């Protein structure tokens, strides 16, 4: 039986997540829930000159949602805002190193969804 989902990388990201916390002068922010298991993540993003200057998150969630939040907030730093729009599940799979499968899809993509919403609101402001 495979516990790929709980690979070393994911467990360690969960136990020691990167970018945990708020950004005081964030100019984009969004809170997203996963109703199925109660994951609740808020992302904070600071955009400067059309680049993601900083990204952090707060909240509670399962190992998959916290690990993906940690990995994706790392990944988007210094990327252009319009690049983020193109990111999808495939990027999450690549970062996690595994396919989370349909049951855990919402957990895996929670932070990315929140990031996209935050940036959309930022752009239409």
């Amino acid at each position: 039986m495979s516990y790929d989902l709980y690979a070393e990388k994911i467990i360690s990201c969960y136990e020691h997540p990167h970018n945990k916390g708020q950004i005081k002068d964030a100019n984009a922010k969004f809170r997203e829930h996963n109703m199925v298991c109660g994951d609740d993540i808020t992302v904070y993003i600071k955009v400067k000159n059309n680049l993601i200057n900083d990204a952090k998150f707060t909240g509670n969630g399962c190992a998959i949602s916290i690990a993906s939040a940690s990995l994706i907030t790392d990944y988007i730093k210094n990327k252009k805002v319009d690049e983020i729009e193109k990111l999808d599940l495939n990027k999450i799979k690549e970062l996690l190193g595994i396919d989370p499968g349909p049951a855990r899809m919402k957990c895996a993509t929670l932070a990315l969804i929140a990031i996209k919403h935050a940036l959309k609101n930022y752009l239409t402001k």
Partner: protein
Amino acid sequence: MYDIDKIRDDFPILKTKMNGKRLIYLDNAATTQKPQQVISAIVDYYSNYNSNIHRGLYKISEKATQKYSESKEIFAKFINANSIEEIIYTKNTTEAINLIALTYGEKIIKEHDHILISEAEHHSNLIPWMQLAKRKKAHLDYIKLNEQKSGLDIESLKEQMEKKPKITAIFHASNVLGTINNIKDISKLAHKNNSSILIDGAQSIPNIKIDIKDIDCDFFVCSSHKMLGPAGIGILFAKKSILADMPPLFSGGDMIKVVNKYSCAWNDLPWKFESGTQNIEGAIGFRIAIDYINKIGVEKIRKYEKDLMKYFLEQTNNIKNIEVFGPKNIDERVGIASFEIKNIHPHDIAYIFDKQGIAIRAGHHCAMPLVSELSKEKALARISFYIYNTKQEIDESIKAINKVKNIFKIE
């Protein structure tokens, strides 16, 4: 004698596999499995006498009509109601509560009135009252949890009753804590304060003997699917004296006696509340589910469930870093136990259980105010037993708990 092998043999799904392992189904508070007898009864209806009820003047329709009424008769007897006039079939518990809130509630609640519920309600016994309170500018009051957060605080109940609520709506057994409320005393207290009382029996009726006359509540609601019957059929018991004055929620076919172009007369009880073609297969299947429960005996089911719960509490007591919620005394709880393993999200627990072929629930259990009080993650894992579960299955669950702890390197 409790013949567990024979019981298990009646449930075809228990022979199936999940993720390559024999299915261990421990999510009975969400819905129970169905015995072959129930499945066959539904197949028999569609194969041999499918027809609409209350209308056809021919043999098979007579039979379907009779089976539908019989289902209510059997249920009325099951809870010791006076007659089927007091038994209304709905889609589920949720619809039954909404029906009361939207008809009876709508009629009697006025501005500044009080509606009393508790902090441990399932959303289906919370949102309809919240909405009613909003519509009427009435107050929604909560009975608080006790200090141990294992059930309701009796002092708080008494305090809230002093506000003289018009309606009190409360659970019999909690779907999160498993805690059983003393609904007979609560009904008495409510009536003493001139409040009518609704009991949410979704989690109690599967394993606790219900005597509606003894409880003396005004409304009792539950769902067939949580007691071996098919989904899509729920039950509203209401005292006849209340139903007689209560307006129907939906109107249309079947619920009327005579119709003119500009007026109509409602049908007799309980049909006035059942408009349009009903869930006939559901009623037929539900009846067979009650027969099945009766054949074993509710008292025996209760005793068996307590044995399982006792065993589970003993086994988990030896494990570090796990907290099981709800009363320690098994007489005060049904076969439902929510738990937490330190620093592990419940969703991860349920996932690892799934890989072992064990179905459990993780999340807020449709009781967000309560679960938020109990857990910082706002989510819990929950295991819940029914008549076909065994101690060996609990042993497998304990192994799964240890597996979870290993993977997450928790002591």
